[in-house]
C-alpha cells in the first residue's frame, strides 16, 4: 500500500562519526536524513551492525549513498524445510 519495502541496513561500525556517542543515534540520524516517517524495525548489534526499516526504492537508494552505509539489502522471505 505504501510502496515501501523492508530493508536491512548494514552499517560500517568503524565509520561512525565521533560526534555520536551511540550507534543507534547515528543509525537514526542517517535514517531520518532520507525519511521523516521511517522507523527502525530492529537494530542489530551482534550478527551485523545495523538496523531494519521500511523505505521506498528512492529512499533506499538515497540511504545507500550516505557515508558509513555498507549496504541496503532488501528483506528476503525464507521457508521451512
Amino acid at each position: 500500500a505504501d510502496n515501501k519495502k523492508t530493508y536491512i541496513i548494514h552499517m560500517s561500525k568503524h565509520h561512525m562519526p565521533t560526534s555520536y556517542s551511540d550507534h543507534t543515534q547515528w543509525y537514526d540520524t542517517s535514517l531520518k536524513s532520507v525519511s521523516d516517517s521511517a522507523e527502525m524495525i530492529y537494530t542489530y548489534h551482534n550478527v551485523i551492525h545495523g538496523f531494519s526499516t521500511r523505505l521506498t526504492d528512492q529512499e533506499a537508494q538515497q540511504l545507500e549513498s550516505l557515508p558509513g552505509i555498507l549496504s541496503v539489502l532488501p528483506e528476503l522471505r525464507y521457508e521451512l524445510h
Partner: protein
Amino acid sequence: TTRTPEFLGLEQNGNLFPQSDKEGDVIIGVLDTGVWPESKSFDDTGMGPVPSAWNGACETGTNFTASACNKKLIGARFFAKGYEATLGPIDESKENRSPRDDDGHGTHTSTTTGGSVVAGANLFGYATGSARGMAPRARVAVYKVCWVGGCFSSDILSAMDKAVSDNVNVLSLSLGGGTADYYRDSVAIGAYAAMEKGIFVSCSAGNAGPTSFSLSNVSPWITTVGAGTLDRDFPAYVNLGNGKNYSGVSLYRGPTLPDKMLPIVYAGNASNSTSGALCMPGTLIPEKVKGKLVLCDRGVNARVQKGSVVKEAGGAGMVLTNTAANGEELVADAHLLPATTVGQKAGDEIRKYVISDPNPTATIDFEGTKLGIQPSPVVASFSSRGPNTITPEILKPDVLAPGVNILAGWTGAVGPTGLADDTRRVGFNIISGTSMSCPHVSGLAALLKAAHPEWSPAAIKSALMTTSYTSYKNGKVLQDLATGNPSTPFDHGAGHVDPVSAVNPGLIYDITADDYFDFLCALNYTASQIQLVTKRNTTCDPKKTYSLGNLNYPSFAVVVPSDSTGKSGGTTVVKHTRTLTNVGSASSTYKVSTFSDSKTVQISVVPNTLTFSQVNEKKTYTVTFAVGSMPMNSNVFGRIEWSDGKFMVGSSVAVSW
C-alpha cells in the same frame, strides 16, 4: 524421536559421552515456528540449575507466560516486527503473537534436538517407543521467527542477534531461502557471526531434490544437512481385484475399510477438472466417488489435503501415487481416511488396472510399524542435491541425517495433518523433510560440544563429516531413493552421520574465522562484501595468493578449469592443501588411501604418512588431482582416507568439469 537414537547407535552406547553431565551445560537455540511448552518432551525432572552462562529470556505473549519455561526449555522469544511490517499485524484469531507454536514444526524440531525422554511415545500407535532428543540433557531455547505467512529475514537476523547474546552453543535452522550469495543471505551472515562466537550452526539443505544444484544454506561455516531414511516403515498394501498387490505406506488410524474388495476409481475420471487426477479441493464428482477408493496423483496440493478432498466427496479411501518427481520415495501421512501412498512404479500399474478393468476393485491392508527395514539409510528423493551453486569448490551437502518419517513432539494447536478439519490432537507427530534431519545434527553437535567443550564449530563439523559412512556393512554405497542407484557425494556429502565414531574422530580439519576470511578473499569479494559478512574493516592482502581449494574443508570439490589453467599435455593438475589436527592418541601414525571412480582422475597425496607425537599437533598435506579431459558437466567421485588402524578419517571427493 523414537528409533533414531538406536539407529544412530546412541542407545547402545549410553556411556559414550563420559562428560554427559556437561551435556546439561549445552544450550541449543532453535529458530522456527515456536514451541508447545506443555509437550512432555520438555519435562525437566532431574535437571540441574540453568547454566550460569545463560543470558536469555522467556518472553510473555498471547497464551504464553514466562512460567512456560523451565530447566529444559530455558528460553523462548518471538520476532514478529519484520513480518508485521510487511504483512500487517498478526491475526490473533489465527496465530499467537508469542513463542507459542501454532504450526507444530518448531515443537518437532526443538524436541528432536534436545527433548527429554518420554516413554511410550507414539502417533496413533505408530512408531511407539521411548522418545528422546539427540541430546536429552541439553537445554533448549526457541526463537519464533516463522509465522503463517513465512519467515522474514529481518526477524531471523534479530533472532540470531539475540541468540548470540543469549549465549547459545548451537543454532538450528530448518529453513532456507533462495540461493543468494553469502553477502546477501541473512542466514549466512548471521551464521558467520555465530561461528566467530564459537556457536555451531546447522541448517537444512532443502527439499528440492532430486534435482541437481538444488541446495540451500551452502555457506562453508554452516553445516548443511541432507535427509536419509531410517530402518523403520509403516507398510499399507494395496490389494487389487486382479490379485496383484503393491506396498505403500500410511499412518492412518481409524475406522477400517469394510472387509471386502471395494470399487476403485481414478480421480482423473471422476472429475470435471483437467487436473482432476490431483484431487484438488472441489474437483471430485461425489456421485462418481461415493463409497469407492479413489486413486489420486501426488503434486500441487498437500498430500493430506487430497485425502480430505476424497473424504469430503464421499470416498471410502484413497490410494495416493507418486509421480516422476518423487519416484519411489514413501513418505507416510496421518490421513483423515483410510489411505496409503505408493511409489511411481506401483502407481502406474494400479492406474493402468483401474483405467482398463471394467469393474476395478481394491482394498488397503494396514500393517502398522515395521523395523529392520533394509537397505537403510537411503538418500530421500526430496533431499536437495549438489553441486554447490554459489561456490562449486565447496562440496555440499555436508552430511546426511534421519529425515524421513520422524516422530517428535507436536503442537496442541492443530492436528497431525495440520488441516483445519483435522480436530485430532496429538503429543507426537511423524513428518519428513530436511527440517527433520537438521535438528538431528544440531543435537549431535550438542553432544559433541559436551564431550569436547574446547572444540570449535569447524572441529565439531569435521568430526561429524570424517566419521560419516557412505556405504552399508555389505560394502555397497548408500542408495539414492530417487534413482535406485548408488548415491554420490553430491547426494550424501561426506555420508550419513555416525555420532558414536564422531565423538572420537582421531584427527580433525579445523577452520578459524580468519580462514573463512581468506576464503572470501579467494572468492574475490570486494572489501564491502567482505565487511558485510565478517563485519571486519580489514582488506585482503594483495601480496597473498588465496585459493578456494585451500580452505581446510573436510571434503574436496575440484572444478576442472575449462581453460588451460594448470594444463600440461592433456592433463590438468589441481593441488589442494589440508591441515589435520591430532585429537586422538598422542603418538600415532596415519597412512593415506585414495580412491577414484575413474582413471581420468588420479589422486596423490604428499606426504602419504603423517606421524603425530602429541595431541593438538598439526600436520599439513597436499593433494594433487591429475585430471584428464571429460565432457562438460561430467563428475567423477572418489575418497581420501587417513587411517592409523584404529581411526578412519574419511573425505569425499567430487571432481566436476
